[in-house]
């Protein structure tokens, strides 16, 4: 770690990568994609990003960022503000407590962990929306969204791991 100004800036910028990646993912998830068979489904892409960075670099995607990113996503999609923040923060809490378990494990194990987290997150989101709207919501849309989210984890995680390579290494674990 050298002290040149450029080096410092470079280091700082690379440290922002997890935040920027997640920001991109949040914006992209609001863009209209027209999948022919799936008009009603929105995968929870931000959940993937938060899960990934919480396992590998929770220091770079801190809880304050997560709060803001969740609120931004809610604002862009028009859902009640705070719901996504709440879900993502809880995801952070759960994953951070288990992250040592995932370290050094195969991709399959990490993906399996994501399935459990995504399932819990979608169920909780559904419950919150039912409470907030005061009426029963057909859970099918959420179920398909969950399946799509789980299927999209491998490709998105592959992209994120590319960004991960550019992130400066931490001195301690990881």
């Amino acid at each position, binding site marked *: 770690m050298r002290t040149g100004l450029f080096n410092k800036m470079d280091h700082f910028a690379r440290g922002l990568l997890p935040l920027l990646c997640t920001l991109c993912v949040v*914006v992209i998830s609001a*863009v*209209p994609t027209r999948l022919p068979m799936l008009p009603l489904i929105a995968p929870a892409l931000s959940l993937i990003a938060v899960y990934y960075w919480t396992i590998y670099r929770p220091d770079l995607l801190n809880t304050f960022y997560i709060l803001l990113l969740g609120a931004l996503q809610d604002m862009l999609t*028009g859902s009640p*503000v*705070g719901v996504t923040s709440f879900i993502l*923060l809880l995801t952070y809490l759960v994953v951070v407590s288990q992250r040592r378990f995932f370290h050094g494990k195969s991709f399959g194990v990490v993906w399996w962990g994501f399935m459990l987290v995504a399932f819990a997150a979608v169920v909780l989101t559904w419950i919150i929306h039912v409470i907030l709207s005061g*009426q029963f919501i057909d859970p099918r849309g959420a179920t398909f969204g969950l399946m799509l989210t789980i299927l999209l984890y491998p490709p998105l995680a592959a992209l994120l791991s590319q960004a991960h390579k550019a992130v400066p290494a931490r001195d*301690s674990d990881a």
Partner: protein
Amino acid sequence: MAKRAKGPETRTAQPLRTAAQRLLFLLFLGSAVALMVLGRTDPAAFERARMQVTDVAAPILDALARPIDAANALVDRVDAFANMYEDNTRLRQEVERLQQWQSVARNLEIENAQMRDLLAFQRQDVKRYVTGRVIGTGGTFVRALLLNVGTQDGVRKGQVAVTGDGLIGRVAEVGSRSSRVLLITDLNSRVPVVIESSRARAILAGDNTAIPRLIYGAANSELNLGQRVVTSGDAGAFPPGLPVGVISSVDENGIRVMPYATSERPELVRLMDFGLDGILVDGVAGAAQKSKTN
């Protein structure tokens, strides 16, 4: 941010280990809950904040949506090419059928004109059109579209959103250069409608599925599959007679209406201003009248 630990095996990088970090986490989690509660009790305050954020993001979303639209157009084109022969045959038959309708329509038009003269009828015409590109969608629990037009293009709250097929929703929130259309399939959407053939009135209630329900209909009204459903104009939120959809199922689970505008993600949406404020009166609206007419 790169908060780097000095030693090789220090624990400072380990999150939620110190009391301060835990306290911060709880504070943020509490803020998220507070936001949810506030959004429920004071939606108006959030609406403004939301549209300001959306206004800032609109150009980015617009730029991102364009290549996706282009890709979709390409897919449609290939699709159209593949189906050319069948389409051609079908269209020929349709032309034949429509020609018969045309003569019927001509006769009716003349008859209408004569009757209108008799009644000194005043047409409730659309005051203006604004066409917006779809640059964003809602999430799994929100059926909404974000458009790249706002007050500076003449969009006002309460304007009716249609595609070529029929009604899709109305403008629920408007920023200076973006607006959000609440679709008729959304949980919060309620549209006063009437069954065209029987004139039975009901409310079309969205429930997040593709086929909204008909509720509060007159108990003894006769409902059959395939009956046309149009807006009734009650409550002044929608003009009467806009095509909405057809009744697609009638059973113990309720009556469902398949909207004419089945695509939940159209590329272009037309907003029509009928000068109806309805239930969505907005103080700021009407300030900018520089309309992007179509």
